[in-house]
């Protein structure tokens, strides 16, 4: 069992956006506004208690320990057999249309079964998902930590292209991995008192950079609760599908 994770080093990052575009190229993410699996947001220059900061929020799906996007998925669960690519062991698990893969800890979407209701998109407090409405049948989409690439022995596209080597990827369950060591040394999860769902992307950097990052982008809304307490999820999916089809015909 692994839990893949990423550490992003803001001391190295220069905000060049190579990661965001390598991701878009690799997975053909549509270039409509708001569609992104991987992004760079610029922060500042702004004042912090530690001096002026001009830094970046290079973000992606956090592949959380407690993925609230999975909680809200209304698709009927089915049982699926998973095989570890590492050692061939098998494991049966009930999954909805979005699920946390048991051998890697990567949160994935079963596109065949996604009904395009958008609940997971709204639930994610990091805004890491989008609903791809360029498709005939809209589907949720997001970063997969390049599951297919790492399955083929390659690095995630954003890690490979990072010109400053600011993105470090590896297995948290391996205490000798670089990510484990960096986290032990103090790399931080982007979270607040209100939102703590176990994100597996960590940030390191100067005090002022981390201060600015957390102030601007640590999630402060329990977005998934609105979804869970909102209109019936099945109703929502029917509404969403009707809206999408009227958009297409109109």
């Amino acid at each position, binding site marked *: 069992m692994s839990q893949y994770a990423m550490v992003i080093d803001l001391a190295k990052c220069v905000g*060049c956006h190579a990661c965001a575009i*390598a991701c878009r190229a690799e997975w053909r993410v549509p270039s409509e506004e708001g569609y992104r699996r991987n992004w760079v947001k610029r922060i500042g220059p702004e004042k912090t208690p530690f001096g002026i900061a*001009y830094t970046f929020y290079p973000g992606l799906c956090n592949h959380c320990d407690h993925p609230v996007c999975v909680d809200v998925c209304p698709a009927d669960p089915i049982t699926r057999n998973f095989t570890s*690519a590492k050692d061939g062991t098998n494991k049966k698990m009930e999954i909805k249309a979005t699920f946390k893969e048991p051998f890697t800890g990567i949160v994935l979407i079963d596109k065949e079964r996604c009904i395009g209701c958008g609940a997971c998109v709204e639930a994610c407090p990091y805004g890491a998902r989008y609903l791809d409405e360029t498709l005939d049948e809209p589907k949720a989409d997001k970063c997969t930590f390049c599951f297919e690439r*790492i399955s083929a022995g*390659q690095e995630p596209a954003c890690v490979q292209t990072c*010109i400053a080597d600011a993105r470090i990827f*590896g297995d948290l369950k391996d205490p000798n991995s670089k990510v484990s060591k960096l986290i032990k040394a103090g790399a931080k999860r982007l979270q607040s008192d209100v939102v703590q769902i176990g994100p597996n992307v960590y940030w390191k950097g100067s005090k002022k950079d981390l201060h600015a990052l957390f102030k601007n982008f640590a999630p402060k809304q329990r977005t998934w609760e609105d979804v869970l307490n909102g209109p019936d999820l099945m109703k929502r999916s029917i509404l969403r599908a009707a809206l999408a089809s009227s958009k297409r015909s109109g």
Partner: protein
Amino acid sequence: MRRRDFLKLSASTTLALASLGLETKEGFLKPCSTLAAAPKSLPGSLGAKEIPSVCEMCFWRCPIVAKIKNGKLVKIEGNPKSPANGKRVCARGNSGVQLLYDPDRLKYPLKRTGERGEGKWAKISWKEALDEIAFNMDKIRKKYGPHSLAFFDHGASAEFMREIFQALGTENYSSEPAFYQCVGPVAVAYLTTMGYVVSGTRQYIDMANAKAMLLVGTHIGENVHVSHVREFIQGLSKGAKLVVVDPRFSTAANKADIYLPIRPGTDTALLLAWINYVIENKLYDEPFVPRNCTGFNELKSAVKKYTFEWAAPICDLKIEDMKAAIELLAKARPNTAIHPGRHSTWYGRGDVGRHHCLSILASLFGSIGAPGGIYFPTPIKKGHAHCVACKGENEVEEPDVSLRDKYPFIEALPGTPTAEIIKATISGKPYPIKLWGINGVNIIQTIPNPYETIKAIKNLDFIFCEEMMPGETAIWSDIILPGATYLERYDSVYTYDLLTPYVTVRQPVTEPLFEVKTPYWIAKELAKRLNLDCFRCGNEKELVEEELKQMGLSLEKLNAEGGLLKFKANPYRKPDELTMPTDTGKILLSVPDFAEEDLDAVPKFVATPAPPKGFARLIYGRSPVHTFSRTMNNLWLNHEWPENHAWINDEVAAKLKIQDGETIILENEHGKRSNPIKAKVTPGIRPDCIYMAHGFGCKSKHLTKAFKKGASDQYLITTYENDPFMGASSHRTSFVRIVKKDVVKDIPDLRPLPKELPRFELNKA
């Protein structure tokens, strides 16, 4: 071109890479058997055919591999064989895919049908286009003489066409904005003091091994040249201290140990005070300076008057900060990277002097040839393509009055200052210029005062360009030749002579799309029509093979090595074995040749005019996802960064009641107004300047994604002066104030100006 010569690298990449077990130590998954069994359905770029090549989304030219699936380019990655960038490419490198497939590309030759600048064209054949260009070149040359032809060029696409202009005998055969609008002053400063171009296309500065670094107005990280950024970050990661001097809090400033928010235009005052302090306090390298430098005594007495007390009010900096910074840099010597700078056409007067100061500082620290300092290139002897050389035509003969005459240190360099060409085209003096050829450069968005450039264009008998995209330069042309992108052609063998030397070759990843042709084919066809015997290879592939053959290589051999061969670097010199490539073998701290031309042997501080009352100085820089004005229409890059913002100091904005994100207009000292642009209100810029990223505010409606996005800095730069050494045009000599909802708002004076800094006189504007 070498369209049919695809590399047949069968290396099915997924499996190959997988078997390398990339990063398996980190515990990445082993290849998944189900994926490997069905290669046709591999997702993403997995399973693509790979072709090694060389990027040209910018001129840094990183080695790449292009990934092809079903005959289409799907992705570009760095060439893992490259010791410079490895598997990495920047945002622009990644986006080459969208240059190749941009639906707005120029697809076939065009002839202007409306007025110049109107952007109305008719499609014509290659024969008609080339016949018409050759007819006009020949006619105008015969009527007005060879110098009536001028060529503006940039990048690999222009290299062959330049041969034609040179063969036709014009002194104006290479008027490179890359030189006269960018690196000219720094190149001249170092060529003169150190004997080689420490900073031109490349910067030989060993940041990766420095213990301390100094950046003066250099925006590494916003200016993204991958290996250069990597060396900067490697140096910082190893603990190098960093001093950044910049009126704006840049990406690099954020990483600095000491940041000096200097008043624009006063960098030389700071540098002279530092030089004086280093000498007075004997912080220089005592054995190095007398042994390896000349002119120390002249330097010492010339800088004596430049004290911190004198510099502080001019630079608007605190004495203790200036002192702490130079102490920090001196402590690390000789492993101190005094970055030579790159884009150096700031103020006209004093630009060469500023970089001369940087060269002096590096020399006082004994950092020349030392790890972490200025190093020496490792030249790789490149084969010569005998098939490219014009035979039987005129040598370039200087005209009676040359446009180069005014500039005593232009000699070593080809071409003519762009400003001189533009003025001569307008006035007809000292000789008429009636035809412009343009290749690979958008001159309207590159040269200061585009109004003047356009006036000159209106005066021409004929103007043509070779371009990939229908930008501003294309809309002002009579004939437009659609050139192949770097992904559709071979180019001359490429050698890299920095810390990780290599040789590699650009190779096409697809045949040219539409009706576009390669630069070699175009030049060859044009030469033929002008009866010039210049290009005797059948195509570029033959040319590349000829160059490689002389290096004991061939395309086949190179491709068997992954498209790239590494060489061992020889960058460092022991101080007692250091011989500089100057006449004396030493570094010139004081340059007697400058004095002979009535210029300063040791730099002096000469003030550039300060902003007039109510105005701020316009400064500019780069968006890290764009190259010049060239990439704003790229689908992916446009999505990432569609428009620029005007950075306005937060105190100024509060006084003028301007909110962050609000749309404003900028008006310059000549009343020229910008496109609407959003304000970025920040404490990260001084109150006496306004910053914007260069290259936006596209005025060609044929670039459908870039058109009217953001504002153009170039259209606001209408005051410029020319560097007296080599004729470069200054870019930071214009001023702006803010227009909001048709109300002109004066910039408040929040920093007192000392008497040494006279203001720009508006009535002279």
